[in-house]
């Protein structure tokens, strides 16, 4: 039995899922169950809205994904502060910031696409340059830029420092996007939940979406942060090999020269 479990033809469990732990597996299962509930309630069990009709079902993924993007960019900003603060400086904060920004960009993209589809139903157009949509698109592009800056060369510390400064500046855009609906009164509707526009099964479905997406966010950031740790270690190994090779070249050159 033991021989079967450690067979050389199949990888060890740690290599099949190298970034998972018991906690992350439980979290992943909980997120999957939540998403299943969201699909069932969002598409089948919740009623149509009196005004928006079927279009309200898009809000069950649009609102949670927007909330997740805000949360993700907030975590990126706070992790960047933790990195820049000398007492808590650690590359782990930088990796959490990078992982959270990536997941935030994913959810912001989902927010834009689902919002466009909802806009086509409600406004008759996929896109309009109103304050909420424009600031959201600007936030999306800003964090794509942040990810590009993370990919520039240099040491891990250089990457962490420059991206942390950018993340703190970018975080200032989040309240601008959120409050744009009250400051400029654009075409986009203002807060659905805070104004009590949803109730009963519709409100329940929205909260299922928020909880499911939040669990998914934690799972994704946890795994992505661990992948970034592995990639940094692979980078360090490559650097160590290059230093040894360079030293050997110098030693060989000294031995050959008279």
């Amino acid at each position: 039995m033991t021989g079967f479990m450690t067979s050389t033809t199949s990888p060890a469990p740690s290599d099949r899922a190298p970034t998972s732990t018991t906690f992350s597996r439980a979290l992943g299962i909980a997120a999957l169950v939540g998403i299943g509930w969201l699909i069932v309630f969002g598409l089948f069990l919740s009623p149509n809205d009196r005004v928006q009709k079927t279009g309200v079902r898009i809000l069950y993924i649009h609102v949670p994904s927007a909330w997740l993007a805000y949360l993700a960019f907030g975590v990126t900003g706070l992790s960047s502060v933790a990195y820049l603060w000398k007492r808590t400086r650690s590359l782990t904060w930088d990796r959490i910031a990078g992982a959270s920004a990536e997941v935030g960009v994913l959810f912001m993209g989902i927010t834009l696409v689902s919002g466009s589809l909802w806009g086509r139903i409600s406004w008759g157009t996929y896109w309009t340059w109103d304050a909420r949509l424009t600031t959201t698109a600007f936030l999306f592009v800003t964090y794509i830029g942040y990810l590009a800056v993370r990919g520039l060369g240099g040491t891990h510390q250089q990457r962490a420092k420059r991206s942390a400064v950018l993340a703190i500046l970018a975080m200032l855009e989040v309240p601008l996007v959120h409050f744009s609906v009250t400051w400029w009164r654009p075409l986009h509707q203002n807060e659905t939940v805070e104004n009590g526009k949803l109730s009963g099964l519709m409100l329940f479905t929205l909260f299922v979406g928020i909880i499911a997406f939040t669990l998914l966010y934690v799972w994704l950031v946890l795994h992505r942060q661990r992948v970034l740790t592995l990639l940094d270690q692979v980078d360090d190994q490559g650097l160590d090999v290059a230093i040894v090779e360079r030293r050997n070249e110098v030693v060989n050159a000294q031995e050959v020269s008279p």
Partner: protein
Amino acid sequence: MIGMLYAPYVIGSYVVTFVGIGLYTLRILAQARKAAGQVPLQDRPWS
């Protein structure tokens, strides 16, 4: 139930969302497997 009038938009938004999340998840897991082959078990703080 979903009315037929807006069904393509509603279903499309769910498909884009979950296919996008699914592809990103697969990318993370593939990168993890690839990188883990080069990093010994004792260098993974979570394991």
